């Protein structure tokens, strides 16, 4: 067992501690360096992850490195990288940068652990590590009431759902007599279903659904995304959200084979409600961050279609959309951050900087940001050629084909609903696009800070790149799906 495979995690952990340590030593002035350091570290570990070949298990089968973990790690690291690069400007000259970067890195590690968790215990630990770091990050602007409120709501609902999750895990453990996923799988392959399993499953769904922000476990998401510092929102929406999905893949799809039918029913309901709710509510939002929050709820709805059919194609589609969403949503939030910066530079004490009115004429004021935001919106709406389109394409295809091959009207209805939703979503994206390009600008052209530009452009490259040449990622997603041993 070669620990090289764990190098990314190890690197980031060490780096996190190092960053905090350095923070203690150096003066507030020179803390800006930390951002570059952690960015470099994340980049390095991203390369390591991509470079990793082969798979293995560690720590008495508690962690596993396999294609599924790989692709999700890439997602998590990439998102954190974007967030960190943007933060270099966002948190410039903030005296708590050390903690900030440390927390981001730790959160990343936590997500990575979840991605490769092979045991309910490691999963829970990783989950909590990531959650707690993000609780703090959400409330990082200590003087800003809405940031704190966001953190509080996030924290309360979060810990509530981790309680639910833990309870579910305890039941699983009780039934199967083990916390190790392969063993649980082995048990459920033979066992016949009992009410307890269903109960456990629902509790787990509630726990993971909180992270995925599925209706009705989503209530925290809009408030938190709106309230927290925008870069953190991008981390939450693009990154930690996916943690819920990978956990669900590992536990629900892989382990709880016995109750698959029920899982499909549950997710069919949740998916439909979630995507519809997200889109419908997003229409009437004034705050763009809030709108993006709802749109990412809707996206979660699409992704969870993967659980409804559970074919390799659909899981792959889910993974692809998750990957695409990481770039699109992350990038979009960062672009909103730029707008916030722009508004503040107009007027020091401006309230809700992400109001749609501030986007008027963005195409003139901040061309790069506007163009990128335009790309992200189209991608989110599923217009080709973009990562969003590829993801939806594979996902919807998988559902349709399943509907046809099993002559299931319900699946067809679901996919039609999904399609109508994705058409509806165009409405609110187009509204913002109109503000950016049709309405006259409210001020001068601004100089877009370099870190933002870099981060956003990286996101754009990710979004469009996947759209133009999806072959490699599709392969990865297929491999990842094959891990789950679905048909």
């Amino acid at each position, binding site marked *: 067992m070669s620990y090289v495979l764990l190098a990314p995690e190890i690197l980031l952990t060490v780096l996190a501690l190092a960053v905090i340590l350095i923070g203690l030593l150096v003066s507030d002035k020179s803390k800006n360096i930390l951002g570059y350091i952690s960015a470099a570290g994340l980049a390095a570990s991203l390369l390591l992850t991509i470079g990793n070949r082969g798979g293995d298990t560690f720590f008495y089968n508690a962690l596993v490195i396999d294609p599924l973990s790989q692709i999700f790690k890439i997602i998590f690291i990439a998102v954190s990288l974007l967030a960190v690069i943007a933060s270099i400007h966002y948190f410039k000259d903030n005296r708590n940068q050390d903690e900030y970067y440390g927390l981001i890195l730790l959160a990343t590690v936590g997500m990575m652990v979840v991605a490769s968790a092979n045991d309910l215990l490691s999963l829970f630990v990783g989950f909590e590590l990531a959650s707690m770091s993000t609780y703090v990050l959400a409330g990082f602007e200590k003087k800003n009431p809405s940031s704190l409120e966001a953190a509080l709501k996030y924290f309360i609902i979060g810990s509530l759902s981790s309680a639910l999750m833990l309870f579910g895990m305890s039941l699983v453990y009780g039934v199967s007599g083990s916390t190790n996923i392969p063993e649980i799988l082995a048990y459920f392959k033979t066992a016949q279903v009992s009410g307890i399993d269903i109960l456990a499953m629902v509790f787990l769904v509630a726990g993971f659904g909180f992270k995925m922000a599925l209706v009705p476990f989503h209530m925290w998401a809009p408030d938190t995304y709106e309230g927290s510092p925008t870069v953190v929102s991008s981390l939450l929406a693009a990154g930690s959200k996916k943690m819920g999905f990978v956990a669900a893949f590992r536990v629900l799809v892989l382990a709880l084979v016995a109750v698959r039918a029920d899982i499909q029913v549950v997710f069919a309901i949740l998916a439909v409600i979630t995507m519809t709710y997200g889109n419908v509510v997003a229409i009437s939002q004034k705050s763009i961050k809030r709108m993006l929050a709802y749109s990412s709820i809707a996206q979660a709805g699409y992704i969870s279609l993967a659980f409804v059919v559970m074919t390799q194609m659909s899981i792959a589609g889910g993974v692809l959309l998750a990957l695409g969403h990481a770039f699109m949503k992350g990038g979009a939030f960062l672009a909103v951050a730029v707008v916030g910066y722009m508004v503040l530079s107009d007027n020091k004490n401006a309230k809700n900087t992400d109001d749609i009115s501030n986007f008027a004429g963005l195409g003139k004021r901040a061309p790069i940001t506007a163009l990128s935001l335009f790309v992200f919106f189209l991608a989110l709406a599923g217009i080709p050629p973009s990562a969003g*389109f590829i993801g939806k394409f594979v996902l919807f295809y998988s559902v349709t*084909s399943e509907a046809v091959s099993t002559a299931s009207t319900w699946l067809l209805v679901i996919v039609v609903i999904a*399609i109508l939703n*994705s058409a509806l979503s165009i409405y609110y994206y187009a*509204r913002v696009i109109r503000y950016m390009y*049709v309405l006259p600008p409210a001020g001068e052209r601004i100089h877009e800070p370099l870190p933002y530009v870099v981060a956003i452009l990286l996101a754009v490259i990710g979004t469009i790149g996947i759209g133009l040449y999806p072959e490699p990622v599709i392969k990865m997603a297929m491999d990842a799906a094959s891990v789950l041993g679905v048909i």
Partner: protein
Amino acid sequence: MTAYISLMIAIALIGALIAFLTKTREQARAVALVASGISLLISLIMLSRFDSSLTIMQFAESYNWIPSLGINLSFGVDGIGMPLVLLSCIVIPLTVIFAWGETKEANKFYGLILLELVGVLGVFTSRDFFVFYIFWEIVLIPMYFLISIWGGPRKDYAAIKFFIYTHVASLVMLLAIFTLYFNAWNITGKPNFDMFLLLEKYQLLDGWLITNVISIKDAIFIGLLFGFIVKMPAVPFHTWLPDAHVEAPTAGSVILAALLLKMGGYGLFRVILPLLPFSDSPGRMITLMAIIGVLSILYGTFLALAQRDLKKMVAYSSISHMGYVTLGAAALVPLSVSGAMFQQFSHGLITCVLFMSCGVIQHSAGTRIIGDLGGIAKHMPKLTFLMLAGFLASLGLPGMSGFIAELLVLLNSYANLPTFVILALFGIVFTAGYHLWAMQRAVFGTFNEKLGHIHDGANYEIASMAVLILLIIFFGLYPNPVLNMMTATATPLVRDAAGLLGVIV
């Protein structure tokens, strides 16, 4: 294998990008003109090398793209695609010339026009369903901007309505494509998005989608049909069109009517006709299409009769003219189908003139309301001449391309769809009616002094319209260059279909 098609698309795309980056409007329009001019040149070369006797795809090219889903960037044209490629390459440069005076955000304006060219060329040439769909979607975005940036008072409503309405249609179409793809994958055992393979395997599909309500085949067929007739647009899915046209800038309307609507008709010939004989109830499907076609013809005509806004009237007239395309396609007679194809081509040319006339009038007189105009012929002789020519072409005057198209459709459709053809004939009188009514009220009669001082169209506007009129007359007198290749492709296409259905050919 000379890569004409990819070259053409690439040039248009590059031109668009350059145009976006240009600083002044002079540069922008120059770039647009050059790029579209080159693509026109290429399309002419293609036309000269095109072998009308062949029915297979010509200038075919193919590159791997997404092997794991069996998706290739493969292009090619046959008698269905080539004329439309030509049309696109004719219309876009002329639109650029017509819009030579555009000042507002010129670089974006011309860039978007070139993007439209990219989109339609892609649609008319892709042989891969995935690629086809991508281009099909790409077309929407520039048009959305053309409407919402340069549009009229209700542009936001119109633009978003256009975008969402047609997007829903294409998504429904996408579902049907999924099913075809899945089916082909099942049968051949490997993924492949090749358009013709998917269409060919359709006949091997069976089963119920909703038990005893609708079979998979019919569902697919209707899904695709829906996708196409919304684009055409056919009654009752047409309401996005008048709004879009009324609000869009002239160039936008021209491209919308001349090229975007043609995508729907193209779909009918390329996709629907091959599937038709194998659907579970071809008879009903034919009737459905025929009803839609005739309904569009008559409904469009009568609504055009009711309009006060000149441009809106023209918009409805497009609906009624596109009805002939559906009707001719449904009739499944080689000449009716090629007539329908020719109708696409000729309507593409004619509608340009009509919308350009509206544009010039709007620009010069400041209004398009027929009642507020009147007697402008006195001050706009050149425009009046061209506009009259355009209107006459549009009402199907012999010697103009529209006549030949509609004549072929009517003559040859009667064999299979007598009732519908008779109904369509009624439309003709009223078609003449609203055209002349509009001309008489808006252009002739005593000059309405309230309009104040109005001037004739600018030279570039008049020039582009004149070229179109010449083309209309040329193809009206000598349609063979495009008609022959259409017939060549239509004949086998229909013979298979009709042979299976046992209808008269």
